[in-house]
């Protein structure tokens, strides 16, 4: 079966079916390029949203896994970063829902992939940022830390500049008062 230049073959196993994708070299290359170029952006967004190092790593990986699976439905003509950011946010919200349901409040464990030298500093930063809501952290990081304009950040996150401006403003007030 031919669809958009990508060949598909289907594999049957009992009642479930796995779609096997024999991807073109072009698809492989564009995915690899996106992974190299954008993983850090996606991770930083996930970290700002969750305030949880391990969760951010998981979310970034899952977002790229979805990009791989759904690559043929993504418009590659423009940057796929907005797609990845919005996907990450949705995945993060799903994750929070699951966590809430399980009544497990995590966050105390030390990140295993973070160097020992910076782990303590990260834990301090995490505690300081914990007073903020996810959108407030993300607004602050994407603009004040990453240097994007509110309009650019809003376009990436699928939100409005006004919402981000308000969130960043609230975030600064909260950080001022939280000491």
């Amino acid at each position, binding site marked *: 079966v031919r669809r958009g230049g990508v060949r598909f073959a289907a594999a049957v196993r009992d009642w479930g079916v796995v779609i096997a994708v024999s991807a073109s070299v072009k698809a492989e290359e564009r995915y690899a390029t996106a992974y190299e170029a954008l993983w850090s952006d996606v991770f930083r967004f996930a*970290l700002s949203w969750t305030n949880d190092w391990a969760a951010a790593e998981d979310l970034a990986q899952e977002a790229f896994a979805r990009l791989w699976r759904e690559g043929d439905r993504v418009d590659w003509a423009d940057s796929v970063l907005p797609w990845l950011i919005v996907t990450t946010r949705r995945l993060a919200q799903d994750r929070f829902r699951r966590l809430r349901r399980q009544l497990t409040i995590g966050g105390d464990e030390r990140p295993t992939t973070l160097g020992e030298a910076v782990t303590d500093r990260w834990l301090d930063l995490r505690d300081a940022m914990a007073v903020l809501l996810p959108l407030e952290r993300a607004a602050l990081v994407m603009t004040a830390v990453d240097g994007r304009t509110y309009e650019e950040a809003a376009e990436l996150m699928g939100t409005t500049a006004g919402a981000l401006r308000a969130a960043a403003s609230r975030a600064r007030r909260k950080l001022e008062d939280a000491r």
Partner: protein
Amino acid sequence: MKRSDDDIDTLLRDWDRVASTATPPAADARRSVRATSALPMSLVVFAAVAIAVVAITGRGGPGGDAGESRSVAGFRVHPSDPGGGMDAIVAGVVETDPAAGCVWLSDSDGARYPLVWPAGTGAHADPLEIELADGQVVRSGDRVEGGGGYVDAASATRGLGLEPFPPACVQAGEAAVFNSSSQITVTAGVGLVLAETLVDRFSPPQPIGLELVAVNADARSVAIVDFVTGTVHRYEPGQYVAPADVLDGASGGGGFIHVWANGSIYSYPGRLDSEPLVYQPDPLRQTPGIASTLEVLPAPDGEHTWLIQPGDDDTLIELVSLVEVRVSRLMSTAIEGSWQPVGSTVEGIVLVTDGPEPLTRLVGTNGAIQAEVQGAALSVGWNGAAIVHPDGSLTVTDALLGNPIRIDKPGEGEWVAVGGPVVPATSPPARTGTDRFLVALTTDDPSGSFFSGGDLIVVDATGAAAPIYELSAGSHLASWSRGEDWVVVVEDASVTLISVDDGSPTPLGVLVPDSHWVLTAG
């Protein structure tokens, strides 16, 4: 001691430094990601052989194409028809996630259950459709009902020798299982592709208690967007007891949907296809050939309804009770002057005059004028009102319009209302929260009838005001979900949900037909 700006900048620089130490899991992890999706060529060859075997042996569901049925990963069907089964009624709205291959039954609480369909049912992917053994086709958004029961999802498939449901499809732990030979009653949805709207775009932590009511007044067609079930249903005359005249307005919330036309009110308990209460104000003010001035506003408790008939010299106000789906008239009064209703608090109905010096008045449930203050109510909640004064300042009051608290503007602009229909008509405004109010700051001319854009502001009874969304120029309507955790904004016909927790918007796109106007939310 407070943090200074420098302290915060240092904190953020440190965050940047630490976050920059993260490195992508690179090759290994990336390969592992691919390994979950791409299959080795040997398996692809096996797959091709397997497809051929299935095609030849025809072991797919009789109701649909075998190969296509099995391309829906979460579709499960009784492998045989031994007859018998469970005694419960399985009913709800079908929802799908084409990407994950999930097919759910969504019940009235919004819980989703993967389904086991009767023997002989087939499925087609792209667009995802279920074909029953009797030839009926079920699409996302349709309501289905049949015999069966709800059982543990793992047990449901194991007991029938079926492949387990994909984990993503199991959300409530249980599956809805139709009996193997159950007849299914299918009620078509409106044909809007729900699978590509609510399911893909919106998955709230909890179901949102909120409905949007949109009407095509001339065709007397009503569309209900129900966020609890995630459905959009459109009712044409013949599918519901419709007024004979062009619809003048609609309002919802509190368990009833009210539609009125030419002085007659149709109050439907719950669903629009239920038997309505039909009644008129007494007296009915009507000039032949001129549309009625009637406005209908639900009271906060959902059991009482205010009927208001503005006139040139006075305004007739009536309060009726709809308890036990029966109308009883509680109060009738006339107040001097022409007044328009804005909303109702627990103490009575709030009305405004639109003269050069606007006034806001509260008429109590006993018919007496309880309070009158200068300024125009912009937003009315159950426990108070937000009132803009002639000098441009905004106050919030209690339910008796007393104890005003001044609100400082969080930005530039003039206070304006955001509630109300998306068409320039005098239908009731959207319902607002119990102690928080939705208003807007516009930086353009606030006296124009066309909203020119600005910030949507949540104002609370303590005097705090926070922008939560940037409203675009054009039509607008905003209302709270019943839990007050979400705000729904309608711009033109596009619907956006805004989380009050974190301000994040979830754009849902156009959920109602072009021919319909969103009139109210509640």
